[in-house]
């Protein structure tokens, strides 16, 4: 339990891990980390660690589940048993079922499914360590895995959580800040279109706070979006180099 004297935001406006309120945790992105999938990515945001892998487009089995006019997008968000403080029992929790749905819907919003009728595209997100912001880090990774798999998208999805801690709007909450904070709002966007693809709110915000949180979220998303594109550029220039 949180010590009552513990402060999430210090007097100088910095947080427990030394960040400013509008600062992301250190972010590292790697593309093509798993060899047997068609596309994959690894995202680490602070201590939050996530793999994503994509298979497809591929034939649907059994065939009667196929859609005649577009691909099916399947998505699983899953956590390892040891990714959280208390061991998570095996099997899908209700939380994992819900998050699989909203992540699937976020990705569906940007993928050109009509280009692959009668096929399926499977997206798997595995949370290796959960220190806040796993669904958004998972989405950030998944859209890169889709890109590596060559699945056409209207835009990448970049995502981050914003929240409210000790009355202040803060970017990219850690697990501790989420737990003892007043609100957590994961946001995912297709930044080029300035459009929301995932939005949830867990907590209480005034209208002004919501507006501020959305602004701060967009700022974080643009930073992440830039790093995603850098990673893709790095990946493909490296490949180009290797092909020489």
């Amino acid at each position, binding site marked *: *339990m949180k010590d009552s004297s513990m402060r999430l935001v210090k007097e100088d406006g910095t947080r427990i891990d030394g960040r400013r309120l509008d600062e992301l945790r250190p972010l590292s992105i790697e593309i093509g980390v798993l060899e047997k999938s068609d596309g994959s990515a690894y995202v680490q945001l602070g201590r939050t660690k996530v793999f994503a892998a994509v298979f497809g487009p591929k034939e649907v089995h059994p065939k009667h*589940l196929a*859609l*005649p*006019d*577009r691909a*099916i*997008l*399947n*998505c*699983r968000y899953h956590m390892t048993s040891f990714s959280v403080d208390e061991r998570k029992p095996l099997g899908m929790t*209700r*939380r994992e*079922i*819900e998050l*699989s*749905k*909203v*992540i*699937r*819907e*976020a990705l*569906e*919003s940007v993928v050109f499914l009509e280009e692959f009728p009668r096929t399926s595209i*499977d997206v798997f997100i595995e949370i290796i360590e959960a220190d806040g912001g796993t669904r958004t880090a998972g989405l950030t990774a998944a859209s890169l895995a889709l890109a590596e798999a060559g699945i056409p998208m209207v835009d990448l999805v970049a995502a981050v959580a914003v929240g409210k801690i000790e009355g202040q709007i803060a970017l990219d909450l850690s697990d501790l800040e989420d737990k003892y904070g007043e*609100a957590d*709002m994961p946001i995912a*966007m*297709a930044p080029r*279109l*300035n*459009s*929301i*693809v*995932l*939005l*949830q*709110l*867990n*907590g*209480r*915000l*005034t*209208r002004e706070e*919501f*507006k501020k949180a*959305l602004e701060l979220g*967009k700022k974080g998303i643009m930073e992440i979006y830039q790093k995603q594109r850098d990673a893709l550029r790095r990946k493909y220039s490296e490949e180009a180099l290797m092909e020489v």
Partner: protein
Amino acid sequence: MSAIPPQSKKSLIAGIVQEKIYNLLQQGKRLDGRSPVDLRPITITTGIVEKADGSSLVSLGKTKILVGIKTEIGTPYPDRPKEGSFTVNAELLPLASIGFEPGPPDERGVELARVVDRSIRESKAIDLEKLCLIEGEKAYILFIDIYVLDYDGNYYDPSVIAALAALVTAKIPKYEVVGGKVQKTGEYFNLKLQKLPFTTTFGLIRGKFLVDPQLEEEAALDVSIIIGVDQEGNIVSIQKNSPGLIPETILEQLIEIAQEKTNAIRNKFCEALNIVI
């Protein structure tokens, strides 16, 4: 694993319906004659299941939601030793729609339960400390079980109404601590809700929005989002619950309307249940 539901085929017919709804929206109209910001009629009946500690049947247009509350005595969560707890479950009954299958709740039922849970939990509607009997040992556990009985679009907003109606009118069997043990007193008590958070569901079609989509509209929407607001105007839950893009610029407007609409629902609710806030 979450999969695109087979019934979600964006068929030719859906396209035609969308066109029609969009044309109406441009004139500020809808298929059933409502304006874009009109809710369907709400009816609230409570106390219909005598074996439940609280119950309600709420209809929003033709959509019908049944909620029942049962209380048990259990152990508080280790990280909240001074609090009772509550659990929300939701089942999309196969009676309600040809699109609902019998069996354990699918992702839609899970999402519904979790959205209602968050609206109640994050608004701190229930004073959980009042539900503790012996710190760290015994507390009331409320089971709030939602059944969608008839589904003509938008089960979210009426589920929140029904859950709150069942809670507000519940008569919880009272226990007391005697010599370190809990025992039934034979009396009952009321839960006094601290907040009354309601939600408004929005649908968007080509940038135009509407509230409380009925089934035909739902199938034609580009995207939908649920916004929960408490009586002080705080936003207490948001859930984008479908694929699709929401222009960031429209969000503030939706929130403003959600504040209005939930206020209207709250007035209706208080009037129906004879509550003064």
